[in-house]
């Protein structure tokens, strides 16, 4: 029996998804459920001067209209021991608490009616008058109040080693440029939705969440009830990309409304509402200064970032983290700053921080390569650090150079002629560009329960979610190998807050966090079954030493004898369970654990209309063991396509006068469509890295998006000679 880990097992939940039977948050057929529709503010800052709900109240089917004047004041007990993954500084937004408007499309009322159509119609009848105040709605305005983050972690504090100013001044070759990424919205295709069901003081929430335990805690504190009176279920999540890591205010609204109308309430956000209320990647402006000697050795790096945040919370990203470890340079500084604006609080979005910072660093490096007349791959290899330059720790496994070598070979980088505009295909200009990628390999304490059923099948249970990477499948693979049975006999149940604690599915850390618990629980289960078998006279294995048995092929074998789990369990009157928590070592890390990768991109640019098309992408990744090549490939390709969106399409446009997002939909907020996506090849180094877990796997959720935008921008430069430093690369920027 070959191990299941490493096999391209098709998704366990595949059939449910292709037949439409996988139920997402808003799709639970709760009898008696009624519909809630929020009313959103039309100003960005000020107060509600009056709110007229009479017409809405009188509309057919309306059960309640809640505003700050009549909504129950939820207790919002403070966090004692926050589970929150974020270290945001400030006070989170609580809906219908007061008359203050803090951002555009803030909740100002919620209408509950028997049917969706009645709720939608009545919500349009709520009349709100405002006393507006001048809002900070443009980044330029916000810059005057820019400040250092209050957060004291690595991303909040300025960092310096050596004397970068001096080294930069003395450098033979210098790059000093500014780079911008605009506000981007996650836009998962499933809109955020919650069904809230009260049964006495028990609250059940069917929610779109990457972290049901976080929502459970949030709701319990919000309503002042014990954690175990809140149950949160999110077995299927229609994409999230970070937006469902945080419990948002609509969850409070749904549960509040359900309490008031004494009926189950479904609150499904509109696409438009999600632009105001469920987070975004913050607009970030950066300055990068690079200094190098004539042979291409970096002597100075200075990277500064100004990131958008809200006025009521400070949201700080890891924008500058990657810069500190990517290349060997003795003189380096990173300086983070925040730009408060009258917007809602930003939220982690795929590759948060790294995707932003690496766009600037990797584009600047390409500029340096041009200035040095050096191959961009060679320049990167020349500055490869032997140990983590920030922590001074040895790398657990740094295969950045190998990814560049593999990627370059598969791409045919050697065929590239370096001169700008030197490559053509018919009338089209061809450009080839590359860039590097990195993301930390993280692991958090997480629990799992594993059960041997009476039939001899196995069930894995955890509160972890599967938002698309394939957790149902990968955990079945891990359990199958640990217990020694076919992966088809493993059932995985996830995303119910009643199940064992799991960390959020974010920061590419869930596999590394959950798999050790599943694996160890599975091994203990097999050991317990072995002990049972050798002590049971009815077992063919009776009298053997338990530790000599092998768990394989759906049973236990030893000394030429064998008993299947099904036969063993047939004599049992109850399933056998093992519950286990697995945590990374508490001691200080002895190694620096990161994933690395590189992207190679070919673009064509039509010289007449300046349309940029990505023609092919080859990306190579060093992520430790690849657990499931089939689902990993989708992860990698999906991240790369997200990077194509960053590079060429995505931008949230805000009216600088009023702070209102103008493209709050999916027709004017552009994301890549089928026709934008070329052949994409993702290849992996054959490697394992045991530094963060016994399976030797790291994470693949974020890494593939990091660096893609720089690779595309570098390719566009190679084709046209135009260096676009503010994303997205649209036609007018190439004129």
């Amino acid at each position, binding site marked *: 029996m070959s191990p299941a880990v490493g096999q391209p097992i098709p998704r366990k939940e595949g059939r449910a998804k292709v037949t439409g039977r996988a139920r997402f948050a808003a799709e639970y*057929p709760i009898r008696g459920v009624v519909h809630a529709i929020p009313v959103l503010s039309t100003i960005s800052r000020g107060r509600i001067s009056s709110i007229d709900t009479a017409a809405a109240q009188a509309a057919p089917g309306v059960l309640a209209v809640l505003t700050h004047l009549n909504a129950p004041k939820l207790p919002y007990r403070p966090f004692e021991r926050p589970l929150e993954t974020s270290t945001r500084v400030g006070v989170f937004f609580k809906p219908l608490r007061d008359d203050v408007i803090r951002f555009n499309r803030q909740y100002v009322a919620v209408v509950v009616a028997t049917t969706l159509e009645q709720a939608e119609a009545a919500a349009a009848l709520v009349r709100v008058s405002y006393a507006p105040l001048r809002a900070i709605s443009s980044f330029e305005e916000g810059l005057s109040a820019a400040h250092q983050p209050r957060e004291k972690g690595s991303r909040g504090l300025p960092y310096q080693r050596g004397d970068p100013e001096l080294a930069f001044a003395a450098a033979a070759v210098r790059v000093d440029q500014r780079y911008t990424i605009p506000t981007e919205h996650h836009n998962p*295709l499933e*809109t955020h939705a919650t069904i809230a069901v009260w049964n006495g003081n028990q609250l059940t929430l069917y929610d779109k969440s990457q972290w049901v335990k976080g929502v459970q805690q949030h709701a319990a504190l919000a309503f002042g009830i014990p954690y175990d009176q809140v149950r949160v279920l999110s077995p299927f999540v229609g994409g999230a990309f970070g937006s469902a890591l945080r419990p948002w205010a609509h969850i409070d609204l749904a549960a509040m409304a359900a309490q008031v109308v004494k009926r189950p309430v479904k609150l499904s956000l509109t696409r438009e509402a999600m632009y105001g209320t469920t987070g975004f990647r913050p607009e970030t402006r950066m300055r990068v200064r690079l200094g190098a000697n004539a042979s291409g050795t970096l002597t100075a790096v200075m990277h500064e970032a100004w990131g958008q945040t809200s006025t009521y919370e400070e949201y700080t990203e890891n924008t500058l983290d990657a810069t500190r470890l990517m290349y060997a340079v003795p003189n380096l500084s990173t300086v983070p700053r925040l730009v408060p604006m009258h917007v809602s609080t930003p939220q982690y979005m795929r590759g948060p921080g790294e995707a932003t910072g690496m766009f600037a660093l990797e584009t600047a490096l390409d500029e340096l390569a041009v200035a040095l007349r050096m191959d961009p791959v060679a320049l990167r290899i020349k500055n490869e650090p032997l140990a983590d330059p920030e922590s001074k720790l040895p790398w657990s496994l740094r295969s950045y150079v190998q990814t560049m070598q593999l990627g370059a070979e598969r791409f045919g980088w050697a065929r590239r002629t370096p001169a700008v505009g030197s490559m053509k295909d018919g009338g089209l200009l061809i450009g080839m560009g590359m860039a590097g990628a990195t993301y930390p390999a993280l692991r958090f304490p997480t629990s799992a329960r594993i059960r041997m059923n009476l039939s001899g099948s196995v069930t894995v249970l955890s509160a972890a979610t599967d938002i698309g990477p394939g957790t149902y499948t990968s955990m079945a693979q891990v359990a199958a190998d640990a217990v020694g049975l076919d992966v088809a006999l493993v059932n995985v149940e996830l995303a119910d807050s009643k199940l064992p604690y799991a960390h959020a599915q974010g920061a590419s850390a869930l596999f590394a966090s959950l798999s050790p618990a599943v694996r160890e629980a599975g091994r203990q289960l097999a050991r317990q079954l072995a002990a049972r078998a050798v002590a049971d006279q009815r077992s063919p294995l009776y009298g053997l030493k338990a530790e000599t048995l092998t768990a394989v092929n759906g049973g236990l074998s030893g000394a030429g004898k064998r008993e299947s789990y099904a036969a063993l369990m047939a004599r049992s009157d109850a399933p056998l369970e093992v519950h286990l928590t697995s945590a990374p070592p508490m001691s200080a890390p002895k190694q620096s654990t990161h994933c690395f990768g590189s992207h190679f991109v070919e673009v064509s640019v039509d010289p007449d209309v300046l349309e940029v098309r990505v023609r092919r992408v080859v990306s190579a990744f060093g992520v430790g063991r690849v657990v499931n090549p089939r689902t990993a490939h989708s992860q990698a390709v999906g991240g*790369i396509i997200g990077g194509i969106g960053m590079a060429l399409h995505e931008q949230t446009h805000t009216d600088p006068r009023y702070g209102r997002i103008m493209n709050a939909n*999916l027709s004017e907020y552009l994301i890549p469509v*089928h026709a934008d996506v070329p052949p994409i090849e993702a290849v992996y180094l054959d490697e394992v890295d045991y530094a963060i877990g016994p399976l030797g796997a790291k994470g693949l959720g974020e890494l593939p998006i990091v660096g893609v935008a720089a690779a595309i921008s570098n390719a566009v430069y190679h084709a046209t000679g135009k260096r676009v430093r503010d994303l997205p690369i649209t036609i007018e920027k190439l004129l």
Partner: protein
Amino acid sequence: MAKNVLSRLPEIQLPDGQLPEWEQPVVTEKSEPEPVVRPGSPDLSRRTFVAVSTALGAAMLLPAAPAQVTTDAPPELVSVALKVNGKTHALKLDPRTSLLDTLREHLGLTGTKKTCNQGACGACTVYVDGVRINACLALTVMHDGQSVTTIEGLAQGDALHPMQASFIVHDGFQCGYCTSGQIMSGVSVIKEGHAGSDAEIREWMSGNLCRCGCYVGILAAVKEVRDAGV
């Protein structure tokens, strides 16, 4: 009725599991269509008439059926007969109800997805009389008497449609939310004769957005089904 359900909190649905009996959608199913109200029927209230007639003039172009008037329904509701996946449903609907919301909120057919609700994403793609449309842009009253096929109606019993099977093989999805629409469009693109080249498939599939970025697998799945000639 609500209390009855609340007393037994639903278990999560296993990925491949059957729905428990009580989770089955509450639908009235009849073999014969109910009497139908159409715009212009004498007893329609003005309010209903305005809603129906402004909904789309296209409703007037539907094949004529005997104009009948319900007597027991409240004037706000319109009776609509809809054949969905081969079963005829007699519905009394708010005339503002979109076909998408009818499927999801009234018939319990949640395989058709709501994403942009303005025809920009294709997640709600269904067939009406065999032709793919965005169900979010259609009012149900426009399709009285017509035949709708949703993702739930694509498989033949336990046998998946080849496109569904091919999506699993090529991992043409991650989160699974756009998947129903992608599969429905994938089948149509071949049927429409727009699956000649990769570029043509990409172009004619471009009304179906995927945010996870599974386009490469989706293209492979559509090509496989095309080449199999099914």
